[in-house]
């Protein structure tokens, strides 16, 4: 328990708060990495997930490749890309996007797959084009599961973004690795606590957006 109070004291210490290596700057950096990774993963995974969900083709392939992607050790991807492309933000970003893609993909196609086929058939019978079915029926109805997928992706990325500092990028992992090297456990624990706080904030944002979408779907 002693480490915990020391860690809290470390966070509260004004000397650690400001500056480019301060708690605030590193937390923003961490948040920014997380958002960037999830957005990039969404750009890849959402259209692909919609394509699979709408056409019903390639589902087996998607499930198998997300399984394989889950098995990819993030630390391995970070170090591999770090060695090939040099240290910096690219290596951890590639690894974080790879980490986020399976969850977003699963959320996107599962959201469409879970829709009652009769609803889609009814839309088709009303004369909607395939594009209209996708954008006006399947996308809104699949939104809750998509948000669920984004939520678990974000949670995984925010916890794993600490590894970015191992290959020279920033984020809260900086404090972790510095603490690891100097055996400064309170500093490591402080970094961990900050990551958990960040995760809690993001969870809160998702909780609210899930409730808002649920309410919207019910009033329409």
């Amino acid at each position, binding site marked *: 328990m002693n480490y915990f109070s020391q860690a809290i004291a470390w966070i509260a210490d004004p000397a650690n708060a400001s500056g480019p290596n301060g708690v605030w700057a590193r937390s923003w950096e961490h948040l920014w990495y997380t958002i960037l990774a999830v957005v990039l993963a969404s750009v890849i995974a959402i259209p692909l997930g919609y394509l699979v969900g709408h056409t019903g083709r390639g589902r087996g392939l998607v499930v198998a490749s997300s399984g394989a992607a889950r098995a990819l*050790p*993030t*630390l391995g991807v970070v170090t591999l890309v770090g060695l090939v492309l040099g240290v910096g933000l690219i290596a951890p970003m590639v690894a974080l996007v790879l980490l986020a893609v399976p969850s977003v993909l699963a959320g996107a196609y599962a959201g469409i797959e879970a829709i009652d086929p009769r609803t889609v058939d009814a839309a088709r019978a009303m004369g909607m084009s395939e594009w209209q079915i996708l954008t006006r029926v399947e996308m809104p109805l699949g939104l809750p599961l998509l948000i669920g997928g984004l939520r678990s992706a974000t949670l995984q990325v925010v916890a794993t973004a600490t590894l970015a500092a191992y290959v020279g990028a920033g984020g809260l992992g900086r404090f972790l690795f510095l603490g690891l090297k100097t055996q400064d456990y309170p500093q490591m*624990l402080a970094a961990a606590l900050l990551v958990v706080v960040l995760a809690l904030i993001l969870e809160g944002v998702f909780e609210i957006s899930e409730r808002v979408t649920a309410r919207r779907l019910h009033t329409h």
Partner: protein
Amino acid sequence: MTWVLNNLELIGSRTLSHLLLAIPAIVASFVLALPLGWVANRYRWSRATLLTAAGLLYAIPSLPLFVVLPSVLGFGVRDRINVIVALTLYGLALMVRSAADALASVGMPVVLSSTALGYSAAGRFFAVELPLAGPVLLAGLRVVSVSTISLVTVSSLLGVDNLGLLFVDGFQRGIIAEVLTGIMATVALALIVDGLLVLAGRALMPWTKARR
């Protein structure tokens, strides 16, 4: 390829210690998740509490957990037990939800009719609910096994022996082949264990295969 051939013995021993970290954690999280999943379904308050706690557990970055646990548990920093406990916690974070969903997927009519047939609560759990929850449990266990095997590698940053040391060592010495070998060995290990779980599932639950 030459790096692999020159270091076969090293890869073998790292793979073995990798498995010795991952398998106890996978088994422990499965065994512990069952009663927790049961409790989660039993009461309304316990479901929300347990599932939220499990979700937040997953948000704790693994590296500091590997570092902090020794001081909480009182073992040495490089003691393997810390890694196993940490991995079990992450496994639980995923498995409790699966176990709760799996047990909830058993229909109420089935539960009621087995009670009517004279099963005791414990007998019903083991003879009726557990086998019927099997397929969903297996799906959860497969996710836990794959992610645990991949997560083991993070503990190598603390110097714990497993396939992740190939990343750390390869990165520090600039040997791409070594890092690549580590990645492929980890993925292969995860896929092999996953395949074994699927086979075990077919052997233990032959009815799931017949239905397809």
